[in-house]
């Protein structure tokens, strides 16, 4: 019950098929305003090729899984959902080969994804910031906790971590950080993530947020958050 499509170099169609091909093509025409080939080409811009599996799930949501190739070698896999009715996308996971480090490949993936989401009328991207680095990295990339409740839960974790290093901070620093952790405003996460106070061979923001897990979102109507994200992914210099 899926559609699949293979895109070769220069965006050429290599293969296609699947029982849902017609439905997925219709979804693309409705929400992306162009057909499935154009949708796939936009997602694979700046890459040599990709194999994509697409599936329509309930309420017109599209699930996309994609393998990305560069010079004949698989370099990345990504999975995400697009829910145009809710104007929302969910980034499930993305993995890349270590060889893609310093090639900017992850930026190209996020840029291509942004192009598609924009044209599908998506206004927010959500994800679960987790694993070892996710809790810190996504905060630095402009994502904020989805709800005040999410922030309150995370703040509890941060308070406990802060307690363990309180003696290493100067009174003024500790005072400012405690003020942020106690705040009900989820923007406090960004304030903490960017903190440059040196703690245990790293920064305070990184020390507190590494290893945490929270549900995050990037709201396209939140100008400062979007600007940070666009700068990080290399769209804005």
């Amino acid at each position, binding site marked *: 019950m899926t559609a699949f499509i293979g895109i070769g170099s220069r965006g050429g169609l290599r293969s296609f098929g699947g029982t849902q091909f017609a439905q997925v093509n219709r979804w693309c025409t409705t929400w992306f305003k162009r057909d499935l080939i154009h949708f796939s080409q936009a997602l694979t811009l700046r890459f040599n090729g990709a194999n994509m599996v697409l599936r329509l799930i309930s309420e017109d949501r599209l699930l996309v899984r994609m393998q990305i190739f560069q010079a004949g070698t*698989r370099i*990345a*896999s990504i999975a995400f959902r697009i829910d145009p009715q809710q104007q929302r996308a969910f980034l499930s*996971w*993305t*993995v*890349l*080969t*270590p060889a*893609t*480090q*310093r090639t900017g490949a*992850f930026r190209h*993936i996020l840029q291509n994804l942004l192009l598609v989401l924009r044209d599908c009328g998506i206004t927010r991207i959500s994800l679960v910031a987790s*694993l*070892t*680095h*996710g809790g*810190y*990295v*996504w905060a*630095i*990339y402009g994502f904020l906790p989805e709800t005040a409740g999410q922030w309150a839960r995370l703040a509890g974790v941060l308070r406990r971590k802060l307690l363990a290093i309180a003696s290493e901070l*100067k009174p*003024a*620093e500790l*005072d*400012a*950080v405690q*003020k*942020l952790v106690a*705040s009900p*405003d989820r*923007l*406090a996460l*960004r*304030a903490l993530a*960017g*903190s*440059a*106070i*040196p703690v245990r061979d790293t*920064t*305070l923001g990184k020390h507190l947020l590494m290893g945490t897990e929270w549900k995050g979102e990037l709201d396209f109507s939140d100008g*400062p958050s979007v*600007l*940070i994200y666009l*700068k*990080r992914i290399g769209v804005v210099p």
Partner: protein
Amino acid sequence: MTKKPAPTVTDFVTAAYVAPRRARTTEAPPKPKTPRARRSIKFVPMEELMLADLETTSNLVSLPTEEIDRIAQIFGLSSDDVAALYARR
């Protein structure tokens, strides 16, 4: 005693097309099929590469000045608080 005749061109050509003689008389048993070794590609989460990128381009780690100003305004942080939190050392 007769002299062994020298090989002719036909003999050479024929020899080239004849299958080599095998010592065994029965067909060798088929080799058991071994699963084809899968090419193992190691992948890492994108977050790991994003972090490596942040650390190599250290100027990107801190927040933009305008965002620091906005945060300070929202949370009522004094300029001393801001200096304590975000000053580069």
